């Protein structure tokens, strides 16, 4: 094998390996205490359009692109009856999660803050009701509802009745702040 061939093969394998490892890591125990949303203080995760967002916490990637985190989030979404208000992303009593409109921010750490703190008009506060790991998992799943997650980490459908296009074929919605008169 020529060295060029060998080197490019090695590079390809390395890339494949790196990209694969993240997706296929199996999570069991999350960090038990003190994730990025500490219990006592709510950091400001809401920024006006002119503000600069701080960089994403490194933990985010571990959840966003991880297939088992998204799968567990999918289960928790169903178990915690998120669908009761949000349906399977289409919204109802709660806001739609499939569109690109995020009143309190659509980045994963902003979604975790919304889940933990609760939001006006009915979103309950789940801090202390779910562990940090579970909230991050749900947030990772919520991100897939608007097509944000990499398509190889999501599952195409759940084993339930389905009214939405498969998640692997969902187009990525560009994230933008919600209009104030929209609920």
């Amino acid at each position, binding site marked *: 094998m020529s060295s060029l061939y060998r080197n490019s093969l090695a590079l390809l394998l390395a890339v494949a390996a790196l990209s694969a490892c993240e997706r296929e890591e*199996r999570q*069991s*125990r*999350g960090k*038990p*205490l003190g994730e990025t949303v500490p219990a006592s203080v709510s950091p400001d995760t809401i920024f006006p359009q002119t503000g600069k967002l701080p960089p994403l916490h490194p933990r985010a990637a571990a959840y966003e692109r991880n297939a088992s985190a998204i799968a*567990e989030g999918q*289960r928790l979404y169903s*178990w*915690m009856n998120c669908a009761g208000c949000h349906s399977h992303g289409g919204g109802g009593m709660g806001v739609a999660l499939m569109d690109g409109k995020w009143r309190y921010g659509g980045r994963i750490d902003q979604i975790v803050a919304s889940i933990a703190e609760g939001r006006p008009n009915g979103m309950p506060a789940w801090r*202390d*009701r*779910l*562990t940090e*790991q*579970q909230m991050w998992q749900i947030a990772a799943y919520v991100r897939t509802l608007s097509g944000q997650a990499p398509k190889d980490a999501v599952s195409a459908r759940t*084993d339930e009745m389905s009214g939405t296009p498969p998640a692997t074929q969902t187009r990525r919605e560009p994230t933008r702040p919600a209009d104030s008169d929209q609920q």
Partner: protein
Amino acid sequence: MNRRIAAVAIAGALLASCNGVQNVMGGDGAESANFIRLFTLFMVLCTIMYLIVVAALLAALWRRRRSGLTVDDRRHHQISPIVRPALIAWTALVVTGLTVLTVASFFIDRSNAATASKPAIHMTVTANQWWWDVEYNLPDVSKTLRTANEIHLPVNVPVHVTLKSNDVIHSFWIPNLAGKQDLIPGRLTDVLLLARKTGLYRGQCAEFCGVQHAQMALDVTVESKRDFERWYSAQLATAKPPATPLQRAGYRYFTTRECAACHNISGTPASGQVAPDLTHLASRRSIAAGALPMNKGNLYGWVADPQSQKPGNHMPTVGLEPNELHGLIAYLETLK
């Protein structure tokens, strides 16, 4: 006579290991007793067939000292006259033996189906990854009992169990009592149990259902009718309120923090439906679907870090402070 000795020897060798709580030779239920009968018949006939084959093989090899019908004598196409009758006899023997076995199997199958044809108790068992949701469905709906990972049965009473699954395919198997049935999402299957001997048994999931398939067992208690009714009424009672300050602290944590999101304790605000019902946790023989025997140390270990005992299961490691843990365990131990 030799056959009987052989049967006893074989049965003895196998039964010697059958004092187990999860053993197909246990024979503690009607269906499993039928199993032993049929298995013994099969073992006897199959052993005889095997010994005939091996004896013929060894005789054929031993006989090689005499000259045979080979190419060296240009007789490699010839066959001795005894072969054809031997073939017919062998075929007849095999076909007869297999027919006997098939017919016996058929009759035992019918007997099993008829065993618990008039069930007195109806139950529903729903399998989840990796625990058993057990519900007793009596005609009086107000007396429905929901528990998890354990079953009590009255002896000599036919019980019908409807089997469902909430996620993937599992299999419900209590070898001492009966054969297994799969629990398949989207379908209803059922199994009929008729326990004949009191005792403590163990069942286990027998269809690969994910990473913790190996630790999905259930405790089975077969007791007299009176003991069963006593157990049942005790289980119907709601949980006792906490008495000591430590128990109250545990109760407060349980009902206001993470636990209540998933678990149910009847008589308290904790009414999560997606995890095992804990109303009478302390009366059970094991924790975590048979993974750990019930005792204080195991309770501590499990609640503090479920992921170390059963990595990958859906109960998260919460990261409890020591005082919270003490309170919780103190409270959980009152749930008899």
